[in-house]
């Protein structure tokens, strides 16, 4: 009966097509076409043989792989203790620690690179250890969230049962808890590996000039050497590795998955004994230090000059001359203006396309799955690959759009749309369809019923999506480094350029911009968290 009712009250096909056409065309032109162009560019036996025959290619692949493996292992090793403490204990300052770790994860990679640069002594600057340190701090939240969310709901009595059978804390941890959280650890390790294998912003800021991941090598070959074919081969090689890793992870997680009777509510409790209180204080304190110190260092370095504390970098942000008549080529204020303009347009594009796509996906039922899946594709593709594809596609008439002001915000929107769609579709799908049926029984046409019962629920998730899109656009570095032109530098580009120069005032200005970008991102994420519907509000729908 419900199905028949739903069919009768279904939205007119014309409206669904009108809603779907914008997102579909946008996806086809700005994602599928560039991706196909990239593949065509790479599928050339000579180019493939030449690229894969170079020892430098395999040096880059080797470095990319080992730094990703070491970063992943260290992130898991460092993250397990805070994941356990946050999952199992309630303590004062717990929410602050969760917020701090989340903030670190949402910060743009360039800001994270700048923060680690600000923290480390000169002897460690531009070393692979700085890179790995940044990766660990950046991805701690992944381990805490992914592993912690399972750990929080594991029955504590299972560990107690092991203890009553004579298992010490160590035996309980290694023989009971570890095997049970293993699927979550595998999932977290996969995510961290994917992020670090495709590391770009952190490497550009922190690594020595000759140290390159595949992403950085794609950028170097495409934009610095003009070797488009080799860059395309490397981009595809990276994609193949990523697909293999994700496939392995899916199989491994399925193999080790256990039917565990998870607790419906959190098993957190206050630490009981002196030993527990010391353990919680040590782990939580260390996590605050690891996550907070880079941010503090960032702010401190923006006020630091060789002659002492100074606000010169903040007050002189608009001056582009380092000496009378000598310009540095980077205008921080212009970068801020460019970033804000790009964010405004990228957010507008992402909101319009995302809202339209979400309504089409929810309205079309099963038929909407293709559009839903298609719009998620940019998430599975690195930003560098997206920017590179757009660069080599839109470079000939009549689609020579490289100088167009809107190409950068379109690239940002392409990356942001999946987040807008996921936020909106989740909410729209939870709206009780019976409300639409009720409106129809009161005489509303299917369009009016849809407008009155479904569309009002769109605005709040759309506001969340808009804030996310703005945060993504402001911090985007990978695609922008291919698409921005001279004079159109964004804040992340300017940060990378300023921190790459010698001169304390330029470095300090880089830290100022990074501080501003960090603060803006954190504010946007706080807005997102405030706007997100609560459990109670979701249950009401």
């Amino acid at each position, binding site marked *: 009966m419900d199905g028949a009712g739903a069919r009768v009250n279904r939205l007119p096909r014309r409206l669904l097509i009108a809603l779907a056409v914008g997102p579909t065309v946008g996806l086809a032109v700005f994602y599928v076409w560039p991706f196909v162009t990239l593949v065509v560019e790479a599928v050339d036996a000579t180019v493939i043989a030449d690229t894969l025959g170079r020892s430098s290619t395999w040096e880059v692949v080797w470095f990319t792989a080992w730094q990703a493996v070491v970063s992943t292992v260290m992130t898991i090793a460092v993250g397990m203790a805070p994941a356990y403490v946050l999952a199992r204990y309630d303590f004062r300052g717990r929410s602050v620690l969760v917020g701090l770790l989340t903030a670190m994860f949402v910060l743009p990679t360039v800001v994270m690179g700048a923060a680690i640069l600000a923290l480390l002594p000169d002897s460690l600057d531009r070393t692979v250890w700085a890179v790995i340190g940044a990766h660990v701090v950046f991805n701690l939240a992944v381990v805490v969230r992914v592993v912690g969310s399972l750990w929080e709901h594991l029955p504590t009595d*299972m560990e107690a049962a092991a*203890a009553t059978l004579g298992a010490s804390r160590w035996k309980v941890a290694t023989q009971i808890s570890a095997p049970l959280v293993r699927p979550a650890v595998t999932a977290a390790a996969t995510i961290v590996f994917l992020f670090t294998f495709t590391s770009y912003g952190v490497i550009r800021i922190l690594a020595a000039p000759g140290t390159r991941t595949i992403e950085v090598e794609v950028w170097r070959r495409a934009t610095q050497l003009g070797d488009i074919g080799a860059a395309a081969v490397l981009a595809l090689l990276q994609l193949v590795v990523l697909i293999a890793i994700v496939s392995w992870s899916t199989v491994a997680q399925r193999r080790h998955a256990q039917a565990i009777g998870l607790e419906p509510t959190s098993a957190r409790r206050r630490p009981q004994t002196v030993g527990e209180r010391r353990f919680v204080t040590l782990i939580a304190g260390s996590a605050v230090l690891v996550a907070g110190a880079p941010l503090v260092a960032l702010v401190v370095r923006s006020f630091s000059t060789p002659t002492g504390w100074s606000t010169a970098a903040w007050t002189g942000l608009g001056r582009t001359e380092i000496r009378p008549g000598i310009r540095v080529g980077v205008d921080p204020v212009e970068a801020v203006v460019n970033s804000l303009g790009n964010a405004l347009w990228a957010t507008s594009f992402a909101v319009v396309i995302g809202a339209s796509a979400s309504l089409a996906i929810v309205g079309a039922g099963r038929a909407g799955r293709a559009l839903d899946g298609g719009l998620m594709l940019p998430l599975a593709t690195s930003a560098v690959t997206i920017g590179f594809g757009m660069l080599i596609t839109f470079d000939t008439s009549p689609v020579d759009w490289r100088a167009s002001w809107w190409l950068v915000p379109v690239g940002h929107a392409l990356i942001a749309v999946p987040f807008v769609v996921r936020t909106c579709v989740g909410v729209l799908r939870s709206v009780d369809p019976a409300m639409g049926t009720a409106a129809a029984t009161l005489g509303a046409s299917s369009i009016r019923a849809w407008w009155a019962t479904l569309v009002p629920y769109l605005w709040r998730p759309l506001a969340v999506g808009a804030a996310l899109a703005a945060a993504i656009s402001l911090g985007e570095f990978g695609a922008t480094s291919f698409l921005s032109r001279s004079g159109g530098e964004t804040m992340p580009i300017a940060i990378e350029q300023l921190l790459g120069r010698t001169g304390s005032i330029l470095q300090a200005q880089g830290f100022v911009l990074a501080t501003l970008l960090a603060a803006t991102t954190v504010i946007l994420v706080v807005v997102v968290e405030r706007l997100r519907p609560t459990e109670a509000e979701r249950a009401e729908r």
Partner: protein
Amino acid sequence: MNAPPRDPPGLDIQDVTVTFGVPRAEGTRGRDPSDQQLVLDHVSLSVRSGEVVALLGPSGSGKSTLLRVIAGIIVADSGRVLVHGVDVTQRPTHLRGVGMVFQDNQLFPHMSVLDNVAFGPKMAGIDRSERAEHALTWLRRVGLEGFEHRRVTDLSGGEAKRVALARTLAGEPAVVLLDEPLTGLDRDLHDRLAGELGALLHDADVTTLLVTHDHDEAATIADRTAELTDL
């Protein structure tokens, strides 16, 4: 003439008091002494060596909390727990010699039936072949011969209870705690298992404290009953 030395009780609970903190109301800060809820108020109980005592009491009277204090899972505000005359109050759970069967079994889902039952002997450092033999013996005693390689997630409710019992007894603890071990079973299975459980505990001659709210079950399994409200 001196009186002959008396054996200490298998389990002696002396003056145990437990309070729980009540979660603070939304938007309030700081600690309020009135936020403390008294769960056990100076409770004492003695169980002779090899005796099976059933502890009865209404829901919320603190029966399960008392078992958790004895096992060292919960730290009491005050009081002492002695096992065969040895004060174990400050010992961690794994060094108390107290085994426990949980209401929902808490079998380890990543281990086979045999590995679950052999877990206690493994923690005691017994070598692989000996502990496997020991576990098989206990599986036979609870009527689960041939189940050793089954996944615990594939067991029926009654089978899972038997495995949980075999696992606890195979560790040869000095004291066994049973937290409503037969809850959730259908009547026939419940009555059959109650009879088997009573026989098994007496055969094993192990000091046992059984928590239940079922008087018939207590009468079938235990030598003696105690009401928590009387303690």
